[in-house]
């Protein structure tokens, strides 16, 4: 699971108010090279919650992302490369996504997060 997906997901258990962002418990992290496409990065950037991405990247061992960002930084090649690496190249293979409110664990196995709720949660 890439951090792009993580950025879009929240805990959706009925009644949960602060289900975002999900905390990452990483057991196995892989880095896989992905095509670098600056146009896509510029397109997706405004839709990314930066703090959530930064926190998640740190949990996966990528801690070089700047604290605050702005649209102007998208012209900077070295920033784009960092953004690309954190967003698309770091994969969570085994681990869990943890709801910040309830502590419910959503298991990630073989890179696929299981976000299905139990009967008592929906």
């Amino acid at each position, binding site marked *: *699971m*890439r951090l*792009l*997906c993580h950025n*879009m*997901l*929240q*805990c*959706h258990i*009925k009644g949960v108010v602060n*289900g*975002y*962002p999900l905390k990452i418990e990483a057991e196995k992290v892989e880095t896989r090279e*992905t*095509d670098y*496409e600056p*146009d*896509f990065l510029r*397109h*997706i950037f405004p*839709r990314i*919650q930066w703090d959530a991405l930064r926190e998640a990247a740190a949990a996966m061992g990528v801690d070089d992302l700047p604290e605050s960002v702005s649209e102007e930084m998208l012209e900077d090649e070295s920033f784009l490369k960092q953004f690309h690496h954190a967003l*698309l190249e770091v994969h969570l293979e085994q681990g869990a996504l943890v709801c910040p409110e309830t502590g419910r664990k959503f*298991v990630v*196995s*073989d*890179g*696929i*997060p*299981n*976000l*299905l*709720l*139990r*009967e*008592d*949660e*929906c």
Partner: protein
Amino acid sequence: MTVIGDACPPASTTTPAPLLPPPEPAAVTAGLDEPQRAALPLGILNPAVIPYGSSAQHAQLLAGRSRYLCYFLHRHLEFRLAEVECLAGLVQQQQRQKERQQQKEQQDGQEEGREAQQEAEQQQAKEQQGEQPEGQQRAVVWEKPFENWHDSPLWYAHMHGGDSAAAAVAARSMLCRVVLELWGEADSLEELRRVLAERKEERRALWGRPDQSFKYVVETYGCSYSMQRQVELIESFDGCNGFQGPIDLRSPQLRFWIVVCKPNGQGLPHLKERYYFGREVGAGDRTPLATYDLRRRRYLGPTSMDTEMSFLMCNMAQVRRYSLVLDPFVGTGSVLVPATHLGALTLGADIDIRVIKIGKKDAAGQPVNIWTNFADYGLQPPLGLLRCDLHTAPFRDGLRGVLDAIVCDPPYGVRAGGKKSVGREREIKPHGDYVPSTAPYTVAECMHDLLDCAARLLVVGGRLAYWLPAAPDFYSEEEVPRHPALQLVANCEQLLSSRYSRRLIIMQKVQRYDAAEAEAYFEARGPPVLSIDCIHEHVYKTPAQLAADAGLSLAEHRAVQAARTPLNRGKNI
């Protein structure tokens, strides 16, 4: 010269006299009035269509457009115009973007640049909301084929953007064989040659100069020409064109098409004898269909989408390079394969963990799954696969305008039923691999969730493409699900059997998502109920049971069914 395509049934090219006497097409066409010829639904909502030969009366509507002849395959008749129109819309959008970018670059550093840029952005927003004069906003104005036959393969398209746009449309199209700049059409070859000779000098200055290699292509519809006859036909056009360049059959710079249309009694429309001559502007490319043929794909499920159809879905959803595309019912990933081929980045979700994670074993005992399918094709795998449920979707609350397209084949309970998560009061013993139970998911609920999800997650201007099950017995336009933020663009039927069909529905997000508005809208419409939810019982009833339900005898019921089934149409037509 090309080999005669799908459009022509193999006919007796070698036998001089056919076994059956030729049909009397004149009598057939004479007996048909305009509504019967024009009975084919065109697939697009409110298309701009003008009658054959009426360009002059619609000068205002056609201003800035060029007229091209689209020669279609005789396949998926209801999808043909819709596909070309959607692609034309995409190409024109891309051209405008490029122009704007160039303007921006020129104005960079200038003071006035900002204002102009803002103006351009406002203009773009307006365009996306469709605030343009009626008819002008259509990507294509269609001119009906000769004699206004709707199921003729030859439609005239009036498009913006000139040859380059038309070529780009043709290159991506699956159902349009070629887009021609029409040089002449006539009822006889003599007349056609005379028409061409009239403008010979004027055209030769542009096309057919000594430095341009060329070739002729003979295309026949409703008949078949032997190679020798094709060569004779081509040679007869030498005089009236007088091209000076060298002939190159392999990779010519110019291709000229002679299209021969003849009436035929074998299930094709009864077109009148007609000859067309045109310069090729762009040609369709169906080679991806062979590359991604399902028969050679290792990981398949019972509802894997046919390659041609999944390309049509992606084309009509205007998937392009760097689009972010989601399939919420990803299954074996068959819809995402063409999307990735077209340069999109994809996401997939499914409720069934077995399908997306575990996969199957192929004939050689090797494990196969979605990842191996993409690896086999050398395509970039999906950006992510999620196991989740659309009914209780796990996307964060504020997530808006992130996807460019949602392309999917929802479960509608004919071959694979839908499932959703359910709330139930009972004691749960939580452990690592606890399997929560699921409940059946009706088509109406599924559509409601899908549309609401699309209205949230799509960018304004982004598209949703999905299939809706239908049966002629109870389909009505009102059945098509609606959403206040989504506008219906196309609705094309594919017939699967006499009792059952499916419709490709294309919707475009036209305004920002407003939760209160959406809720009020659905409140007013009541709980989602669709009569197609009973399709399961309907499809599996025997004809005798259906006849009894309708209070008819079996023979009467069969007659009613036969009258309802469109003539000469089938699964691929």
